[in-house]
């Protein structure tokens, strides 16, 4: 199995973002996803900046994938999408079907992102036919279903499977910005408050249980999906890449833990002691087991 660094879901200052990827160039990950997938108002890095980063990381030996925006609303969103697709130097992750259309038209291979809702072999087979060389299952898809998908004759064997294996789960997208709402601001005048919350804003229940994370127009889990203790199961299920989702602190150490696990240098039982202290929230793994996503079963 390989490791990938998923797209940065938060909004960090330009300096912090560039510093993060400068470090990431030296982390033992095989692939790095770049680009803004959450909010079109986040502009501290433009496409040209991402492309420059992509060149650097490619030179550092990483496979680079440019990820498209998940919620397309305006003509300017489409313009940005077309520009990204037109560049053609790097593999692209399509995060909605408009991007799939443009990539298929161009005949460019792509990664089918988790928001495309490929829940069955016919849809996944269609994506492969259109040019997908890799897919990321919906984050709620359990192990048994992923295995059924991969066993289907409709799905080409060469198609790679990348699983969201670490990080706060991207659960929902909205037209509304919940971070702006927290500050009684309208989205069009959000004052870029996301910059103040490098790992999102925790939303708790009225009995102080961490429940969800507000990240602009995206809602994430408050808990951190972690399948580190299940690496053997992941391998057996036919997963090719593990996606680790960026967080503002300790990311390099998280990558190290996964790399050590893949190389057999760490027992599953030793994972919580190594990993839990690096997480911005409590761990969860329920989706993998076909349960509520927030459930957790340490080995």
């Amino acid at each position: 199995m390989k490791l990938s660094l998923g797209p940065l879901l938060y909004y960090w200052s330009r300096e912090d973002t560039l510093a993060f990827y400068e470090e990431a160039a030296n982390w033992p990950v095989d692939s790095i996803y770049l680009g803004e997938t959450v909010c079109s108002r986040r502009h501290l890095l433009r496409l040209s900046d991402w492309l420059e980063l992509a060149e650097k990381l490619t030179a550092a030996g990483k496979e680079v994938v440019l990820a498209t925006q998940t919620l397309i609303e305006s003509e300017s969103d489409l313009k940005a999408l077309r520009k990204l697709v037109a560049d053609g130097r790097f593999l692209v992750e399509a995060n909605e079907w408009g991007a799939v259309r443009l990539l298929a038209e161009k005949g460019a291979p792509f990664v089918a992102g988790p928001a495309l809702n490929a829940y069955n072999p016919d849809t996944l087979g269609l994506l492969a036919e259109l040019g997908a060389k890799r897919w990321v299952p919906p984050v709620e898809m359990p192990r048994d279903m992923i295995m059924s998908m991969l066993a289907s004759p409709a799905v080409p064997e060469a198609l790679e499977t990348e699983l969201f294996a670490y990080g706060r789960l991207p659960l929902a997208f909205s037209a509304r910005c919940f971070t702006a709402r927290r500050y009684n601001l309208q989205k069009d005048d959000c004052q870029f408050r996301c910059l103040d919350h490098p790992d999102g804003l925790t939303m708790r229940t009225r009995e102080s249980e961490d429940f969800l994370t507000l990240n602009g127009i995206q809602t994430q889990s408050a808990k951190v999906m972690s399948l580190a203790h299940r690496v053997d199961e992941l391998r057996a299920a036919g997963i090719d890449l593990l996606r680790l989702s960026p967080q503002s602190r300790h990311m390099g150490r998280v990558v190290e833990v996964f790399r050590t696990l893949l190389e057999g240098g760490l027992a599953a039982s030793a994972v919580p002691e190594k990993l839990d202290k690096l997480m911005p929230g409590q761990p969860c793994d329920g989706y993998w087991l076909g349960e509520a996503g927030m459930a957790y079963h340490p080995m």
Partner: protein
Amino acid sequence: MPALLELICPAGSLPALKAAVDNGADGVYLGLKDNTNARNFAGLNFDAKSLTEGIRYAHNKGVKVLMALNTYPQPDTVSRWHQAVDTAATSGLDAIILADPGLMAYARKVHPNLRLHLSVQGSATSYEAVNFYRERFGIQRAVLPRVLSLPQVENVVNNTDVEIELFGFGGLCVMVEGRCLLSSYACGDSPNTFGACSPGHAVRWQQTPKGMETRLNGVLIDRYADDEKAGYPTLCKGRFDVQGETYYALEEPTSLNSMEMLPEMARIGIAAIKIEGRQRSPAYVAQVTQVWRAAIDAVKKDQAAFKPNPAWMAQLNKVSEGSMSTLGAYYRPWK
């Protein structure tokens, strides 16, 4: 002439279907009694017998019947969705409403004459996405998620020959439909695969010394003081704590009501207005259908002079969730 402002009403049961037909719907939409549609609730929806009777009743009065098959088929049960498409094709339905591309491919191949609509659960928010489904599967109508402002909707209309249907009234998803997993995160069942959000089996109501508490699989969604009316614990409409402040962090318990935008919707060429609420009573369907029929007729008669009648608005507010309504994303400041 292309369709303009057809009134499409919810039919969660045969009595609801009759209420919609009798009160002026141009079309009704319904689902089968299983997880092939996004209102998979106990006691709702149609079996073979009620479907036949419903289609007969509607068609006798010139009203179209659409079937929602708008959840995502899963590997081991995909045949259930295929059978549902076959049922739709042979029962004389006017169209099926689908979200999943694999299922569209099946329908297109096996029943090439069956009219296909793209469900709101397909999450298509741009004309590039809408046109993808048009080219590949020949869809004739798309229902847009409740996320675009009206000028953004107009831009979609202007760049596709697919008819565009919008939500006019009813329960409001604050998230992009088809892209919300909050329910499965909390309780294991999501609209995409199970066909329901915050399903009844996971809900608990409990009177406590602190007030009435509503929970979803143990997660406290809200707590109500004695003088507050407790609402259903749809998890995006509870009160939560962010940085020490407790408020409706995602959305208030409110309904969408876009009636005042009807003239604008007519001007940009919206083909149909959808009323949400297959889980609601026949009385709700009758009332809402009647009001919207009157409103649409008034807009068609004189767009420029149209103003929502205060009596209509009062009637709609009475049946709204939390007795509140919003223009939602159609009105930009909502975002």
